[in-house]
């Protein structure tokens, strides 16, 4: 039986910052827009963003988009595409002021202009001195952004489908994207959303790691759908980690703890940072600390019954200092690590935070793949923006505050491209191919009919542990090779998941099984791409090739699901209007 079909000009999957920004562009153009989201829009993971939006407004002193561009390229360790980076940095002030006019409650200066905070990695005059570039709404920037954009979308009559999970991309025989299939959680009904333009704004897949700051919804649904539809994933080996997340939980412990005198110990109680960084010790840079922690764990000096974490000791500071200088830390340690850090150390581990790679796009948000000799051939009707997209702005490492800048700029850019595409293609929707949506129906039938299958949580746990142990913040060749084998083997278990509860109504277990299909593709892409990249660049840090190798590896990875095939494409070092910023050593 064919699936019921709903028809729109545009369908957007994901209602975080980029999805909402794109939807607004389309609805304001008078188009019929559907936004699908697993959760209520203002509970998207964008809500977790505190740092601010980077934009060279120059409200605190002289600034320029060109300096922002330099900082972003340097941050990316020269893997970012310079056309996309110039585009983002030039457009950043415009989208921030637009957001202000939408009603975003930015912190302000006495003269009424938007206040801008300093933030690591942002400089004036090409690295000369720090500059204040981050626009915030107290410590709730992401939250305020979601509320502002959601309300604007309600005004613009965007149609929201809340508690719907997209299942699969629908493509024509020539590859044109025609929409998605999606499951309504309340009824279990599967519907085909047909559209002239489809945007994935599904966020990152940070849940692939055992220790992650990401909310549980971040299962890389867009990446899984794209991979199953034959679209490659770009630069998935690049993940930003934070050195100190609570082991087993992922909740961040601020770096201020080490700033105030907290120290890291291995299972023998040794202050090991003295060996790795004799001068800076526990205050060495993030990557040095993370690398040392990973090495201690790999060499069997991790603490705990599984020897899998490090101890962050701060009891020697005394309860008064902890309460005064590190407010909230005791409550966080108590709630998420079950320790009173005024008496006992907090178990911590390097924790995944942000995905630099994703679905390959250009700076217009159009999905691009190699085809007919063109390394960046546009997939008609398909767009991606935000953390699930890879334009590539962040390259091998993201500059702080650029995640929100990316959401706004790429969300708007993708929305503008979609408006152009829809207007150019007239009123009629292209015909759906015979059997459209059958793959999703078959996937659900397999899951519902599975007998003697695998437990979803157990398989997910195995994948997350494998990623953490074999493909974490510091990467060892032997562990990567074993990791590829393990992750391939896990695929057989993913294909045989089973859920006990057969109900169709808000069946969380069934949703989690469908999410696992997506999470797995992101994990596999990460492991295979990381094993293959034999250099250290940005966040991809290898023990055996401990330097950047521009001669061999100044190129983007493209991973295809079919046979774990890898291709590479050149980094675009040519900006839109200014001179190229040539690769040099990345030193701060």
């Amino acid at each position, binding site marked *: 039986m064919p699936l019921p079909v709903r028809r729109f000009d545009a369908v957007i999957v994901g209602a975080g910052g980029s999805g909402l920004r794109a939807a607004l562009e389309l609805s304001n153009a008078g188009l019929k827009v559907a936004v699908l989201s697993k959760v209520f829009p203002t509970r998207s993971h964008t809500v977790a963003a505190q740092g601010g939006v980077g934009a060279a407004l120059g409200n605190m002193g002289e600034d320029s988009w060109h300096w922002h561009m330099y900082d972003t390229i340097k941050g990316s360790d020269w893997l970012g595409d310079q056309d996309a980076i110039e585009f983002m940095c030039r457009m950043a002030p415009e989208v921030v002021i637009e957001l202000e006019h939408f009603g975003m409650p930015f912190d302000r200066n006495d003269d009424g202009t938007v206040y801008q905070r300093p933030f690591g990695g942002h400089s004036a005059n090409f690295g000369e001195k720090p500059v204040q570039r981050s626009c915030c709404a107290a410590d709730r920037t992401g939250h305020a952004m979601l509320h502002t954009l959601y309300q604007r979308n309600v005004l613009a009559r965007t149609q929201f489908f809340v508690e719907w999970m997209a299942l699969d991309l629908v493509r024509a025989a020539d590859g044109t994207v025609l929409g998605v299939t999606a499951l309504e959680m309340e009824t279990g009904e599967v519907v085909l959303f047909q559209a002239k333009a489809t945007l994935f704004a599904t966020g990152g897949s940070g849940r692939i790691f055992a220790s992650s700051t*990401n909310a*549980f919804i971040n299962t890389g649904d867009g990446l899984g759908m794209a991979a199953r539809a034959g679209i490659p994933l770009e630069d998935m080996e690049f993940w930003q980690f934070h050195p100190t997340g609570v082991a087993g939980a992922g909740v961040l412990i601020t770096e201020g703890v080490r700033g105030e005198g907290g120290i890291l110990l291995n299972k023998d109680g040794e202050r090991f940072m003295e060996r790795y960084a004799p001068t800076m010790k526990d205050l060495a840079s993030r990557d040095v600390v993370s690398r040392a922690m990973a090495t201690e764990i790999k060499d069997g000096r991790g603490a705990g019954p599984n020897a899998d974490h490090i101890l962050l000791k701060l009891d020697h500071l005394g309860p008064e200092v902890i309460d005064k200088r590190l407010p909230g830390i005791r409550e966080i340690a108590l709630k*998420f690590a079950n320790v009173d850090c005024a008496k006992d150390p907090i178990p911590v581990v390097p924790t995944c935070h942000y995905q630099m790679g994703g679905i390959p796009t250009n700076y217009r948000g159009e999905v691009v793949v190699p085809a007919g000799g063109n390394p960046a051939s546009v997939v008609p009707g398909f767009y991606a923006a935000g953390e699930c997209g890879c334009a590539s702005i962040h390259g091998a490492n993201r500059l702080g505050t650029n995640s929100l800048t990316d959401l706004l700029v790429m969300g708007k850019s993708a929305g503008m491209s979609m408006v152009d595409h829809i207007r150019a293609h007239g009123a009629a929707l292209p015909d759906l191919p015979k059997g459209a949506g059958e793959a999703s129906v078959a996937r659900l039938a397999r899951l519902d009919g599975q007998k003697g299958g695998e437990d979803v949580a157990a398989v997910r746990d195995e994948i997350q542990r494998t990623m953490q142990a074999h493909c974490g913040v510091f990467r060892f060749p032997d562990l990567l090779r074993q990791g590829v084998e393990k992750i391939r083997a896990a695929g057989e278990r993913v294909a045989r998941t089973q859920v006990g509860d057969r109900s169709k109504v808000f069946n969380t277990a069934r949703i989690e099984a469908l999410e696992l299909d997506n999470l797995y593709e992101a994990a596999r892409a990460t492991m295979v791409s990381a094993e293959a990249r034999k250099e250290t660049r940005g966040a991809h840090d290898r023990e055996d090739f401990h330097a950047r190798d521009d001669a061999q590896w100044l190129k983007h990875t493209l991973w295809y699901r079919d046979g774990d095939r890898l291709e590479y494409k050149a980094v675009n070092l040519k900006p839109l209007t200014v001179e190229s910023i040539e690769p040099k050593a990345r030193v701060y």
Partner: protein
Amino acid sequence: MRQCEAVRSRETQRLRWRSRRGLLELDIVLGRFWAGCGEELDESEAGSLARLLAMPDNDLLDLVMGRKPCPDPALLPLLQRLKAA
């Protein structure tokens, strides 16, 4: 009677899904809550949970972490259970 139970079960399942949040901290606390005794919510507890889950993530986290006082005494019993989870 049976229909009533089915409705209640659907409401419980809905609350369970709505415990998926934008902030990891809340995912963890609510996950522990459901793993404990979440399935056995009575009608008034389910009502309280629904109201708490309708709050913005940051506000709910402030309540759960005890950074802000509970705005409504009627929510206190369930909030205490979340805090203890």
